């Protein structure tokens, strides 16, 4: 089957098996290995990407379901050689250790920050409940998201 979609702003067209999962399409067809697989069952969030701006777990979306859509992965976060504020936040606040959950965690956070500009600690914990991190105990991840929120508010002049 043929799918046409935009990945990190680049249009693509590929011939694929109908059963191919979006995460495997991104990793094996598009060659973007920044999106990870941690459970292949919607339970860990390692595979989180943005599908038309909304966070989805790409291990439970078929690539053909994304036909015509626009996908953003961790590789698409930085712009003009500059990290996205969420990337700065994770780096600045030590929001990662092994880094395996990090791409998915950041995509879920970007989704949150697109909906609310000044989330409380509780809102952040809640918004990230679909994303498991085994290393950090979450506290520095929360700080990372707060850091990004503040930076994004400042940039937007709010």
């Amino acid at each position, binding site marked *: 089957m043929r799918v046409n979609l935009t990945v990190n702003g680049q249009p693509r067209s590929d011939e694929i098996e109908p059963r191919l999962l979006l995460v495997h399409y991104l990793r094996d067809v598009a060659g973007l290995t920044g999106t990870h697989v941690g459970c292949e069952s919607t339970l860990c969030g390692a595979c989180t990407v943005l599908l038309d701006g909304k966070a989805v777990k790409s291990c439970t979306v078929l690539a053909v379901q994304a036909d015509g859509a626009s996908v953003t992965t961790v590789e698409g976060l930085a712009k003009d050689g500059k990290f996205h504020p969420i990337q700065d936040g994770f*780096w600045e606040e*030590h929001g990662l250790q*092994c880094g395996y959950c990090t791409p998915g965690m950041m995509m879920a956070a970007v989704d949150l920050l697109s909906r609310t500009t000044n989330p409380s600690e509780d809102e952040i914990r809640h918004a990230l409940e679909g994303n498991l991190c085994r290393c950090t105990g979450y506290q520095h991840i929360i700080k990372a998201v707060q850091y990004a929120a503040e930076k994004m508010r400042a940039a937007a002049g709010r």
Partner: protein
Amino acid sequence: MAVVPKFVGERIKRREDPRLISGTATYVDDVRLPGTLSAVVLRSPYAHARINSINVDAARSAPGVVAVLTGADLKDKVGGIPCVAPAEHIPFHPLLAQGKVRFVGESVAVVVASDAYKAQDAADLIEVDYDSLDAVSDPEKALEDGAPILHEEFGTNLVTRALVPNPAVDEAIAKADKVIKFRIVNQRLAPVPMEPRGALADWHQALGHLTVWTSTQIPHLLRSALAAVLGLPENRVRVIAPEVGGGFGAKLNFYREEALVGYLSRMLGKPVKWIERRRENLATTTHGRGQITYLEVPVKNDGTVLGIKAKFICDMGAYLQLLTPAIPGFSGLMMTGCYKIPAMSFEQVMVFTNKMATDAYRGAGRPEAAYIAERTMDMVAGELGLDPVEVRRRNFIPKDAFPYTTCAGLVYDSGDYNAALNKALEIVDYPKMRAEQAEALKHGRYIGIGIASYVEICGIGPSAMLPPKVPGWESATVRMEPDSRVTVLTGISPHGQGQETTFAQMAADAFGIDIDDVTVVHGDTAIVQYGVGTFGSRGLSVGGAALMMSVGKVQDKLKKIASTMMEAPPDQLTFTNRTVALKSDASKSIPLQAVVDAAYGWKMPIPGMEPGLDATSVFEPTGCTFPFGTHISVVEIDPDTGVVKFLSYVAVDDCGNIISPLLVAGQVHGGIAQGIAQALYEEVVYDENGQLITATLMDYAAPRAQMLPRYELAHTVTPSPLNPMGVKGVGEAGTIGSTPCVVNAVMDALKPLGVRHIDMPLRPEKLWRAIKDAKKA
């Protein structure tokens, strides 16, 4: 030129992070080699069964399939998975089941195909004819007469029995005011690194050389084991630990699949990759803990503990992995905790069960010990009507007693247990908190305050403490390159701990250069000298000490050369701001680069001196370090639902000197999260037939962000005398302090209801029932 700052002790952002946050890091599954084939393992659905026959015909002819192997194909062609710890009964541990399966998930066949989807399709076509056998999953039942025997050749399910007798304990029991007896369980846990295991093997026929990328904590030890199992010369095997997505002890091991991909790649002449799925991870990656302990504790009425006598039943699982029977020993030896308990004795009975093997999981035996020691202190306080703080103070090893030899024969390097306890009490405002608790109770609110003063073993360790093939030393090479930048090759294999940053801090300060001028390399046996690996909180205290030895050697050479150039004695020289300068007068200096130029032989001023600037060292510690601390949590239990809510969590840890405060905080946070998870949420559950119930992340409750509190951290600093940095290690401290701290808090909350002890995990349902039953009674 700008002044080069100092880095040790500063808040330094990690140097590992740019590749990780940009999605450009390379984990095993991200390594791409042209023509790679995918392997999928067919696993046993039974806990215990005889294999009558396996029909692979349909699988072999399925589309894309290149090979299908069963146990019969491997018989006598490869070795088994090694267990290096001593035990009475060590069974052969095959790569694929030989005639019998002994746990759910045991590998039965492997399919290799052009991609993983096709390999899985083909695996589904394999027909295995099993005769199901009775299984035993309860370790206490495994030794009963008539229990199903896992390994017939032994005629028993006993792995080994370890005895550390001491008649003084029985004497203490005879003359004690009171003997407190109880049974506690450290339940089985799954380490659940977010990156499951995975391995990629690439055999080069013409070179007779095998390269294996694998998600491991011990690339060098794994190379040795792999070469032995496959019958290859060790200098023709290269193991690479690329980016590793967490280990927690689960990757301090050598697994069937790592050997299988090596065998298959050699057989097929193509790269072969196997990536573990989460279901496989929960079933076939080592578990941790799994100990039942019966305790007898003789005490005086004033709270003085006179001894501890313990019997452990240790659930080893169906086969023994690398260190399986070595783990319980730490629990026994450390169960006297921070206390000057004059006598202890224990018996450990390790048994086979129809389950995955247990082995190291963050803390590896010491969390169990701290749980025993700290539950004991609270039991003593409860039975004698004393304050738990008072009981701890009465029994603490005093600060002037260090180095202190415990009744188990361990030598604690340094400590000040009261200081950490006092600091934690101050932060929570203990007297005020107790008053609030009493007040709340009047209104039917159950608040509990839990204290745990832990001590643990780090910097593992002197080689004599460990099995021969897992030594305790560590290696490091330091090379100052011709442009005066530094390359560090370390034998440890960090996978999230951040030594690319801490080691760079240390090397930069030592040579007076910028942190960006240091590169730290690890995890590739073809590049790095033989090393041991990252586990037991040894990265900094042992690996870092090896680094400083090599740094010292390179410094010495630079100083010798500089001394001839500056006409000053070498011991008067120091490194600062990219110069070699007089200690007494930094303005009298020469550029470091000039000395480096000389060292590389272009202007070598010392005749006969070997050109070049590198040194390799091995640090063999003379003893372990013993970090300690006090954690205090305050919780409230909702009597209607049994839900535990955290009101506060305070951790005061003493890990000696701190190189990187940011990274220490990260380690403590992550450790606390895993320890709270043991106390409240996690448990690997097998039913009585050995079926694995917790086979997905839906059933295995690894905690999510809203299940954990905010942690408040503080430190006391008691340097270790055993390494040049005075560090102790911090990788496991959080896990060790937090579990008993939280259980003690919950039990404290339920004390007014007469609840004495409930085994972990303290899930709402269990607490709700206990509260209901207590209220009825």
